[in-house]
């Protein structure tokens, strides 16, 4: 990482936690965990409340749908770390890796429900262009997504437009698939807090 404090500036208790994670998972501690555990009052704790609500709070989108949105937003931002991390979580949640890879490689031809497809398209535009308008929202509503579903999707989009930027700016190391699989199991079992 580009800031040494994020690699090694944590307190004794947090370093002990990292050692435990390495021992139990037999994988390196993901840089995103090092970030959220550094000066938690400034970023990790208040951001964790938002991300937990967006990703695991009540919603008519499934956990898999929301993790897919996270991966889709990450891909729109060209964030390799978050694309791989949340593809792994979405695959675990759906128990269907093909669905995730189909959406990320070609949303237009992927076999997904129309409300989800339209929502992903809108999130992609918002992420790339920093803007959407009333017509964009009407398109999503016409595809069958509810107002609440759109708000829920925007919460996911918010979280991952923050996290992806921090991953790339701070220079997160992109580990191998086994580390992401271990991270996915943790996020599916424990969430984002």
């Amino acid at each position, binding site marked *: 990482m580009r800031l040494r404090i994020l690699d090694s500036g944590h307190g004794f208790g947090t370093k002990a936690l990292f050692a435990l994670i390495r021992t139990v998972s037999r994988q390196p501690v993901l840089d995103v965990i090092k970030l959220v555990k550094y000066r938690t009052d400034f970023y990790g704790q*208040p951001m964790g409340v938002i991300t937990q609500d967006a990703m695991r709070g009540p919603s008519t989108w499934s956990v898999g749908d929301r993790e897919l949105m996270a991966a889709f937003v990450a891909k729109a931002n060209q964030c390799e770390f978050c694309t791989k991390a949340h593809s792994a979580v979405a695959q675990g949640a759906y128990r269907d890796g093909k669905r995730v890879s189909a959406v990320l490689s070609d949303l237009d031809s992927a076999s997904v429900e129309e409300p989800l497809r339209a929502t992903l398209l809108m999130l992609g535009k918002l992420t790339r262009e920093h803007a959407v308008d009333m017509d964009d929202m009407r398109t999503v509503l016409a595809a069958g997504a509810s107002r609440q579903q759109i708000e829920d999707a925007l919460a996911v989009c918010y979280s991952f437009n923050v996290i992806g930027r921090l991953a790339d700016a701070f220079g997160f190391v992109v580990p191998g698939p086994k580390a992401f699989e271990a991270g996915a199991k943790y996020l599916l079992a424990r969430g984002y807090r």
Partner: protein
Amino acid sequence: MADIRQARKTLVSRILEGDGEASRSERRAAFDNRGLAEPLTTLVEKVAGHAYRVTDEDFAAVRVAGFSEDQTFEIVVCAAIGVATRQYDIALVALEAATGNETRKD
């Protein structure tokens, strides 16, 4: 229901108005992506626009200019949250326009 508005206010209030190593004016400028001097301008504009283009040299320039790692950490966090906040607010306005009188206030 993912109504993150209150939690988002708490986060933004913490990073902009709470204690920090960077000044409140620097954190606000990073959040707004406006009014910073080099080398922070380059770093913050990249974080807001195309974060994958941030380089080691961008961080080195900020370090040489005298900013500590904690100050840089805060400024980058503020820049990322600022752009996501603007996106979210724009999208909510568009949604409210599309749904007419279903508008829900904070």
